[in-house]
Each structure stands twice: as structure tokens, then as C-alpha cells.
């Protein structure tokens, strides 16, 4: 009996030693945040440009500070994060058009002093002064960083005929070989475009028609993808030959070995703009402005637009002018889409309604 007891104590002691050992090991690797160097807390998607070598690491070098990342998996998560303690802790964040307006209206953002942004003049007109990012009296609340589309991609070796329209996803031709984005906003918008409606005008949409349209599409869908990986495997093995995807996905798929063509269907395509904004009550406003300047500036934007296999569209005029045709083709920006529908701002009821439709389609 006593031997058991002693053994137990020894075991517990051993385990606690092991744990404290690994604790000190992991603590030695990473440094704890507070120090004399100012820290900028950045909220972003994981692996989305800012945490590359030419991003945060370079910024830390240039401005002698520390950059700490907080990652989110969806913009809703970012919203909740900010509401439950993020304000005051997070300094800059990257919402997309949809939520920029929500953040602004809820007083979660600081106006950006454009005098402190040296590259402001060089940003493309089309993405400046978007209504979501502009305040009552013209203050700028967010800076565009990159834009993108969720358009039609396909494997030219596996499809017959020319692909020019969203119609090609439906019908018998590619039954069971379609991949579709599992995001209720994109899904409903794409379907709206297909049924001839204007997705950027959510108040006038026929949701019933959209639901039936999506249910018809579901017959053909092999998988609803949520990330690049969901695409890679079925695509390279030939299970999926066509579907909607981001431009970056198309590039990555090509680099993974299976050819991929990315086109903008004639009916129009869904677009988004990701914007940097400064969160209210930040304790390092100037550093935040410098971050925005860096992110939209020539050096970073050029790297961002030309990095091998994971390039993104630039919003900086000077950078766009420097790109070769090849590089533009790599981000599928040689041919500009005719009609791009930006994601609209939805009221809470509309969000719930749209999600309800999407859940009905998925469950049905």
C-alpha cells in the first residue's frame, strides 16, 4: 500500500518536472510581448501576406518594433473578437467590404489621418472613397489593400467546349464534378448573378428563386469547399473539374500540377476588397499608420503581387505599372472582368435570412 503511494507521488513529481521542462523550453523560444519596443497587434487571416518574410519581419526591421498577430477564421470571428475585449488590445485589422461598414457604424474604428500615409496618392481611384470606408464628413476609415474575385475555374484538359458562363456549372455535362464555395454570402450572390438578379442590391432579391437555383446546382456538386486544401485533392485526382474559386486558388492548383483556367463569366462575378483599418482606442496610432503605409506602399505591394505561387492583386498604381504581362497573368489580371459585384452590406435580419436559405439548401 505504501509502495503504491510512494510510486504515485514519484510519478506525479516526474510528470510535473517534465511539464515545467517543456514550459521553460517553449518560453525560451518565444519571447513574452512586453518590453521597451512598441508592439503592434495585427488581426489578419493566417498566411495572408502580412505574416510573410517581406511583411511583418521587414516592418519590424524598418520601424524597430514588434508585430504580434491575432488570427481569425472568418470576419464574424473578427467582429466578435473586437466586441469582446479586442478594442483597446488590437491595433489594426483587416475586414472585408461587408464588415468595414458595420465596424464603422458601430464606432469601432479610428479615422485615418491620410497625411500620415505617404502612398495614399498612389492608390487606385476605383478603390478609394468606397462608401463603406468613408465617414459622414468624408473621413477615411479604411484603406484598400487588395481586391479579389470568386470566379469560375476549370481544368481545360478535362472539360469539353468553351466555358464562358455560370450555366456551365449546371446541367448534365459535369454532374458530380463541381466544387462550390461553402460560404452563404458568396453562394447566394453567385446564384443571384446566375438568375439575372443584382446581388449588390439585397433588398430586392427573390430568395425563393435563388434557393431553387442552388438546389438545382447541388445535384452537380461533389464537395462544398472551404479552403484551398478542400480543392487540391479532388481536383488533382480528377474528381472535380470545375467550380468557383479564388484567383489565388487557381494559381496554386496550377502550380500543384493540374492545369487550371480562371475566367470571368459573362453574367458577372463576385468580388471583394480587403481593407486595413485602425481600431478605436489603439495605443500606438502613429505606428498603426506606418503599418498601413507599409502595407499599401510600393515595396510590400510589389512583393505581394509577385510572390511565387501566391500572388495577389495590387491596389497601388505604381506597382501595377511595374508588373509585366506575365505577372499580371499570374494573378489573372490581364483581362479585367466586365461586371464585378461587390459583397453588399446586409442587415442582421438579411444575414439570418440568407444563412437560413443556405442551410436549407445544404440540408435538403
Amino acid at each position, binding site marked *: *500500500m505504501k509502495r503504491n503511494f510512494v*510510486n504515485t507521488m514519484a*510519478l506525479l513529481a516526474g*510528470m510535473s518536472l517534465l511539464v515545467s521542462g517543456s514550459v521553460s*523550453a517553449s518560453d525560451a523560444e518565444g519571447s513574452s510581448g512586453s518590453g521597451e519596443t512598441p508592439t503592434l497587434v495585427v488581426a489578419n487571416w493566417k498566411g495572408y501576406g502580412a505574416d510573410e518574410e517581406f511583411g511583418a519581419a521587414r516592418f519590424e526591421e524598418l520601424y524597430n518594433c514588434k508585430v504580434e498577430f*491575432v488570427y481569425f*477564421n472568418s470576419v464574424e470571428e473578427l467582429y466578435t473578437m473586437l466586441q469582446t*475585449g479586442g478594442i483597446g488590445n488590437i491595433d489594426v485589422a483587416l475586414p472585408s467590404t461587408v464588415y468595414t461598414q458595420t465596424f464603422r457604424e458601430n464606432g469601432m474604428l479610428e479615422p485615418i489621418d491620410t497625411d500620415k500615409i505617404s502612398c495614399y496618392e498612389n492608390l487606385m481611384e476605383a478603390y478609394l472613397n468606397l462608401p463603406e470606408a468613408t465617414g459622414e464628413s468624408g473621413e477615411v476609415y479604411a484603406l484598400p489593400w487588395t481586391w479579389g474575385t470568386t470566379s469560375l475555374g476549370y481544368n481545360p484538359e478535362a472539360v469539353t467546349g468553351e466555358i464562358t458562363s455560370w450555366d456551365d456549372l449546371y446541367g448534365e455535362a459535369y454532374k458530380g464534378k463541381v466544387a462550390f464555395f461553402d460560404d452563404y454570402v458568396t453562394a447566394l450572390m453567385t446564384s443571384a448573378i446566375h438568375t439575372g438578379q443584382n446581388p449588390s442590391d439585397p433588398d430586392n432579391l427573390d430568395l425563393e428563386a435563388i434557393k431553387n437555383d442552388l438546389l438545382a446546382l447541388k445535384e452537380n456538386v461533389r464537395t462544398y469547399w*472551404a479552403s484551398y486544401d478542400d480543392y487540391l485533392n479532388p481536383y488533382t485526382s480528377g474528381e472535380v473539374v470545375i467550380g468557383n474559386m479564388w484567383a489565388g486558388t487557381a494559381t496554386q492548383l496550377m502550380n500543384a500540377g493540374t492545369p487550371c483556367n480562371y475566367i470571368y463569366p459573362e453574367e458577372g462575378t463576385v468580388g471583394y476588397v480587403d481593407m486595413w483599418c485602425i481600431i478605436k482606442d489603439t495605443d500606438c496610432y502613429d505606428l498603426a499608420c506606418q503599418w498601413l503605409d507599409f502595407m499599401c506602399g510600393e515595396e510590400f505591394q510589389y512583393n505581394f503581387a509577385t510572390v511565387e505561387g501566391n500572388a495577389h492583386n495590387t491596389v497601388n498604381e505604381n506597382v501595377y505599372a511595374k508588373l509585366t504581362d506575365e505577372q499580371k497573368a499570374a494573378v489573372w489580371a490581364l483581362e479585367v472582368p466586365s461586371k464585378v459585384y461587390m459583397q453588399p452590406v446586409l442587415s442582421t435580419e438579411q444575414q439570418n435570412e440568407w444563412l437560413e436559405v443556405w442551410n436549407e439548401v445544404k440540408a435538403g
Partner: protein
Amino acid sequence: MSKGLKIFLKIWMFLGFAFLYIPILVIIIMSFNGTAYGMFPFKFTLEWYPYLFTKSELLPAAVLSLKFSLTVAVSAIIVGTMAAFGMQSMPERFRKGLNSAFQLPITIPWLVQGVSLLLILNLLGIGRSYFGMFCGNVICVLPYVVMLVLGRFAMADRTPEAAARLLGAGPVRVFFDITFPMIVPGVLAGGMMAFIVCFNSFCIQYYLAPFGVRTLPVEVFTLIKTGYKADLNALAALMIMISLAVILLLNRMGYSGTSLFAAGTKKGKMHHD
């Protein structure tokens, strides 16, 4: 038992264990595969292991999970053992009622448990936090500890305690010298279950972990959804090796699996093994 039945059982058992272990073997093999996503052709490489220790996000998440689960397990052991001990002093009906009450966190799906706790924490203003995650995990593993320690109490012979008290030992002495060693297998089993359940508990941690904090299950889920590299395999292989070592060590020290999982009452058995 007939020979045919024995052979059938042995084959069935072999197939069952094979089913359980083939994916694990696949992971271990794939941790040496240079081709991404575990696809063929197979290229032998050792690169994932150093990657795991230097650039990967998985190891910090695993260490965090380890620390956290240990904390939760220890707390659950303490509170659970106290509960089982206290329940010995209660009248039969009350004890049964409390026992059923303790089944509650297991009976309700963890999704609901996590979500309801999140709502309350939001209301209190605490929201997602280490404290919240700790509470959620502790309440989910507590039933296991209580169940296993109670089982041990039920199975145990109480006369040594009575004898000790008769001989004049105070309650503290009785507890440490007699009661505790008797229930130690139950406490250990409970602690082990608590650790395992907390280590794996995806639902609770997904809802209650502070944003930006990633414990292992949440990290793996995120990686699978957004893009993983084969260091995931390396981590899994390492974890399996370590667990195997711990199990062998425990076995050496005399804690056999059978005594940990022995039933509360033995029906129709003539000897103890």
C-alpha cells in the same frame, strides 16, 4: 468455449485492432513522406521533424494543450476525489441522486455544454478566456473522475478503515494511510481519463478558448481547413511514441490496465486476480 468460437474471436479481435491501428501506422509512415498531403509517390525524408520543432505552430499548441490538460486533470482529481469521499458519508438515496446529477455533463452533448457556458460568460462580461475554458473543461471531465473513484470505493473493503479507527488513529491518519492508497488506482484512472478527455476536447475549446489562443485540437482543425503540411504527421507520430513510452512505464510500475478498469462488483467470481 469451443475451439471454433475461440478462433472466430481471435480473428475478430485481430481485425478490430488492425482497423484501429492502420490509420495510426499510416500517419507514422507518412511523417517520413516528402510529397505533400500524404499522396504518392513516396519520397523518404526526415525534414518534417526539425520543421516541427522550429517553424511549426503545432508544437506550441501541443505544449499548451499539455500544460492545460494537466492543470485541468489535477484540479478534477482533487475535486472529484473529494466528492467521492464526501459521498461516502451520505445516505444512500442522496448518493444515488448526486451520482445521476454528476452524469449530466456527459449526458448533454459537449456542443450544448460549451455553448451554454459561453452565453453565460458573455453575460458576465468575461467572455472567451482561459478561465472560461478551464471551467468548461473541468466540468466536462469531473464526471469521469467521480465515476471511477466511486467505483473504486464501491469495490473496496472498508474494514481496515474501521479497524484503524478502532485502534485509535485519527481521521487524517486513516485517510492517508488506509483510504487513499486503497483508492489510488481509481484516482489514477480518473486522472488519466480526465487528461485524455481534456486533451482531445475539441468542442469545448473551440467555443471557449480566447481568440488567438490555439490548443492542439483547435489548431489541427484550423490547419486541416486552411492548409496543412506534413509536420502534422510528425507531431502525431511523436505523440504516439511518447504515449506508448508512458504506458509501458506505468505497466512496469505495477499499474496494470485490468486493475484500472475493473468493475465495481464482481459477480460469480471466486478469486480476485
